[in-house]
């Protein structure tokens, strides 16, 4: 497969439990802080965990929270990109359930992301192609791939990718019903891990075809795969994840040896972490590059995770360091997965791999190159 024409990152935005702005996210991640705290706004929900990563009070303007978070993240990305023309700016929205206010309550949201995408496009006055992706926890990376595909094909000049999900009783209870929640803060890849800590967030990436608008980072490749073995559990050898990553590397024209850092999916479920490690160790021939995940800090932000974690991978390339895996005391996965235990200098910081997995067996990967 010939390498795809790269698409360039021109703008970034984030709203997380650390507050508004990608800087607050990056500083917290590299300082080793966690926003997974005792539940406050969602405290009334009877779910089997004491914690979640909730937006700080007052960070969002009044209104429907998913829309407000998406708008806030998008504005930051647009500003960093120098406010490109919006008449032909495309939008790919990634979300699992968008707005559930009408499913559990009397609101208008029916858990259908396309409605939120249309409202976001109207609010931002975007006139380009409009797409809405709902691929469970892989949504964010699938959205980045969809945008990159359109840019590479010359369908438009710039695409805004926004991933967003907010905490809701429906989702907290759902993960709880599957016994997938850690009662306390999650510990990805640790022997004592007991499941996910959920979070809420919105991330935005403005992608462009024009190298002159680049912040110095390109989406060099993307890839997808399906485990095709179970709709909620991963392939026991991590084959789907490795296949998606291998496809992303091939599209980028990058060999595994050229990858300098990996941002992990790392949900902290027993099965996900173990199989993710197996798949990546196999892909890299026995030893991975320095690898880190950030869900112990941001919580699992579901449809926003892929975009927010791509921002963290870009930050690693720009800082030249990988942050520590928070909550990791006693690793309990394939030792070939090089889990960063304390902030580590990257001898070379030119290429990052970001991976994600979702219900439905969906696996996705993106290669970022500085």
């Amino acid at each position: 497969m010939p390498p795809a024409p790269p698409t360039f990152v021109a703008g970034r935005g984030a709203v997380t439990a650390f507050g508004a702005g990608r800087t607050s996210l990056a500083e917290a991640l590299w300082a080793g802080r966690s926003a997974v705290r005792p539940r406050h706004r969602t405290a009334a929900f009877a779910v089997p965990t004491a914690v979640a990563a909730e937006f700080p009070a007052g960070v969002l303007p009044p209104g429907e929270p998913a829309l407000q978070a998406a708008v806030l993240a998008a504005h930051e990305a647009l500003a960093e990109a120098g406010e490109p023309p919006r008449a032909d700016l495309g939008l790919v929205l990634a979300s699992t359930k968008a707005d559930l206010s009408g499913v559990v309550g009397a609101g208008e949201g029916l858990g259908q992301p396309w409605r939120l995408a249309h409202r976001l496009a109207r609010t931002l006055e975007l006139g380009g192609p409009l797409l809405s992706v709902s691929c469970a926890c892989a949504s964010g990376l699938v959205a980045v791939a969809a945008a990159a595909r359109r840019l590479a094909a010359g369908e438009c000049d710039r695409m805004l990718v926004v991933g967003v999900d907010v905490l809701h009783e429906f989702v907290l209870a759902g993960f709880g019903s599957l016994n997938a929640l850690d009662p306390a803060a999650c510990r990805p890849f640790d022997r004592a891990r007991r499941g996910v800590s959920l979070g809420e967030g919105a991330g935005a990436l403005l992608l462009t075809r024009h190298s002159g608008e680049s912040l110095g980072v390109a989406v060099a490749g993307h890839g997808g795969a399906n485990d095709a073995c179970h709709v909620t559990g991963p392939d026991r050898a991590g084959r789907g994840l490795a296949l998606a990553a291998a496809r992303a590397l091939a599209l980028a024209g990058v060999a595994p040896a050229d990858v300098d850092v990996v941002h992990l999916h790392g949900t902290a479920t027993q099965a996900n972490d173990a199989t993710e490690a197996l798949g990546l160790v196999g892909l890299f021939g026995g030893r991975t590059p320095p690898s880190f995940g950030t869900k112990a800090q941001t919580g699992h932000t579901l449809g926003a995770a892929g975009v927010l974690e791509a921002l963290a991978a870009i930050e690693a390339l720009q800082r030249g360091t990988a942050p520590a895996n928070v909550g990791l005391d006693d690793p309990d996965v394939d030792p070939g997965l090089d889990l960063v235990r304390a902030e580590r200098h990257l001898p070379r910081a030119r290429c990052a791999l970001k991976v994600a997995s979702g219900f439905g067996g969906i696996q996705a990967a993106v290669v970022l190159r500085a």
Partner: protein
Amino acid sequence: MSAPAIAAIGLVDRERIVGTAGVDKAWRDLGSAPPGNGRTFRAVFGRGDETFRRLDVASRVLVLAGAAAGLDVVLPAAVRDDTALVVATTVGCLDADRQFAHSLGAEMLAAPVFPYTLPSTCLGELALRHGLRGAGVCLSVAPGDGAQAFAEGARLLAAGEAAAAVVAWVDVLRDDPVNCDAALALLAPPGLGLRAVAAWPADPARVRSALRAACG
């Protein structure tokens, strides 16, 4: 790249299950309403599907459409690892959402339903039945935009990201009367050598009529 060939089609609506595998069954004759029950799959295809009755409504309809298209016969085994799957839906998982939301107030949560509150889960059900290990894309689309799935599948082929693509839209509302609509097609580049059963429609808005015409 030239337009892909449409190599198989499966359609399910409130009246019938039809496909290029030679299937044409009316729900009235099956004695059940869409999206069917534990006996439907065997009644239509003459073989069992052990978990069909446990699926949510969108997954049932999509699985029926895939079988009606004859994916198992038409799609070479060697290609399945690299066959992408694109599903578009407007209603999404509203039926499963309502079921799970209802259980929030009950003594026992409807845990088996929760995975089906994600629209990508029906994509997974189809992938595991046919061993489709290519990229997966689930699109949430406005009413009438189901053809976006066909366009995305064509993009994946044009970009060389998949050897073939199964594309579908699916929507089911279990209100009375049941509103059920699914269209599934296998797209293949001309070089793959699969026989075309329908032409790629020049006007994407005419995908539905083109598929229906090809199924007779």
